[in-house]
């Protein structure tokens, strides 16, 4: 069996170690130093009028040296911030392309010391949460999502995505009461009609709790929304619908839905995401892939 690269991730330590610390005190340090140099220069020049020109020259030189040092420090800080942003962008690419070993190595590196930008930190934590879900560490994923929702300011769309991922992790971990509460909160947020993510999780909840007819109702009434918002990930909804049709004894619909699901996504990936689909394997034929694609 392949080793789980996320197994040894210490989530709580990673959050604590990577939290951004206040930086920028150096600006005040440089400003006060420049002011002090100037005041001392003026004081010295007033006490030694015959040396005023020399003192002013020296003060000017010291001021310029301090300004140059401040500029160098600022440029270095900006470069480090840009490098951090680039690293987070690379992390996103690794996750999206399912290059998990590289993604987790990068997460370890990024989250081992305080990050510079709060936004980059929040993004890195979101990708960490995704990695935890991918490797089925649902309890840690829930804890991380709770931390994000409580402590990290996010725009409404991102917060909605985090709540959805948290509800999904709760369902996978069999925290059904918590998941139901989380879904109620999401519905209260007014997102019911517009969120394909919420529809997908509700379908999954109904399949997991043995209510296939309700799952199919949601699937059929939101099919356009699922297609529009989830693109190829609408394969998940088709696959869960196939399970629903199978459970209520509509094998022809189940076969068609399973074929559609496997047209959009690989059967292996769908079965990994939803263990409930294992009963469909062998019972219904996946889509046939042409030679150039298989």
């Amino acid at each position, binding site marked *: 069996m392949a080793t789980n690269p996320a197994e040894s991730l210490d989530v709580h330590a990673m959050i604590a170690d990577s939290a951004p610390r206040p930086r920028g005190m150096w600006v005040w340090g440089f400003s006060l130093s420049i002011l002090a140099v*100037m005041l001392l*220069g003026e004081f010295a020049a007033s006490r030694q009028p015959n040396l005023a020109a020399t003192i*002013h020259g020296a*003060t000017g030189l010291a001021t310029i040296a301090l300004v140059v040092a401040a500029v160098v420090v600022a440029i270095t800080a900006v470069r480090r911030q840009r490098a951090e942003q680039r690293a987070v962008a690379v992390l996103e690419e690794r996750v999206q392309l399912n290059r998990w070993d590289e993604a987790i190595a990068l997460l370890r590196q990024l989250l081992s010391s305080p990050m510079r930008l709060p936004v980059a930190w929040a993004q890195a934590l979101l990708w960490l949460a995704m990695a935890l879900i991918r490797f089925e560490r649902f309890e840690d994923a829930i804890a991380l999502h709770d931390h994000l929702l409580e402590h990290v300011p996010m725009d409404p769309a991102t917060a909605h995505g985090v709540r959805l991922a948290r509800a999904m992790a709760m369902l996978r971990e069999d925290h059904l009461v918590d998941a139901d509460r989380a879904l109620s909160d999401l519905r209260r947020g007014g997102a019911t009609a517009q969120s394909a993510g919420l529809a997908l999780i509700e379908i999954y909840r109904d399949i997991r709790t043995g209510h296939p007819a309700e799952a199919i109702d949601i699937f059929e009434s939101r099919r356009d929304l699922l297609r529009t918002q989830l693109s*190829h990930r609408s394969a998940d909804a088709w696959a869960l619908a196939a399970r629903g049709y199978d459970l209520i004894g509509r094998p022809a619909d189940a076969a068609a839905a399973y074929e*559609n699901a496997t047209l*959009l996504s690989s059967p292996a990936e769908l079965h990994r995401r939803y263990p409930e689909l294992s009963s469909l394997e062998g019972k219904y034929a996946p889509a046939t892939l042409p030679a150039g*694609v298989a």
Partner: protein
Amino acid sequence: MLAVESAIGRFRRDLTVAAALRLTLLGAAVVAFAGGSFIPRLNTPVLLLAVMGAWMFLSYRSVRGSRLAAMSPLLIAAGEFDQAEQRIDEALHSFSLFRTVKLLTLHHLAMLRHAQHRWRDAADLCRELLAQRLGAVRNLSRSTRLMLADAMLELNDLPGAFNALNGLYSERLTLSEAMNLLAVQSDYLARIGAWDPLLDQLKSKLQLVELMNSPNAARTQGFMALAAKAKGDAALATFLRRRVELLIDRQELLSHRPLLAGIWEGSSDEKKNESNETNQEIDPQIDTD
């Protein structure tokens, strides 16, 4: 709505004013330092302090424009075009000592016009940006070229699209840029009937397509289906067509890319559709009779 010509005019004027101000401040700093030897009454530290104070004040004023500019992409992505327009207008009219803020603002205006499907305006703004020295924001050139290529395709200007795309092949692209390039490039190749390059490295391309939003994923696979059909690979054409059908409404797809009607020609679905249309034509006669 911001007129593109006046936005570009203002942008150029602001860049000139900001450059003149930066030069003036730099000149004053040089005089403060070097002039001490020639002008006996010149107080170097005080003049330097004044220059620094002016620089800091103007930088602080520039932050406002920078903040306004930073908000716009989120608003555009959320489809809140009116608010985005207002922010961009404010950012364009606010003072900035730095070129990057103005360049970013113009880029956001190009993004907005592109999202609004105002292709001519988007193309003009992209050309203006590409004509500038981008410096610290040189990575804007890639997304600008992609937008320009897309706008050119929408305007049916194939040589223009080719020129815009041409500069991108030697660049290292991000994942999202690579996805956009694939979408635009597939559109271009299908229009010129370059079927072989459309199907090159198909597996890697499909991996990228699966990360795209529905309209782009459907269009790109539609163009690939056209190529597969033209090359006589019926199995691949059917596979890709069925994926397209699962991703987007057929009428919606054809309203934007009528060329893609070709993927249904001769398919069983097309025959079914034709027979439905015939029935619909017959039915009213039956009612009337």
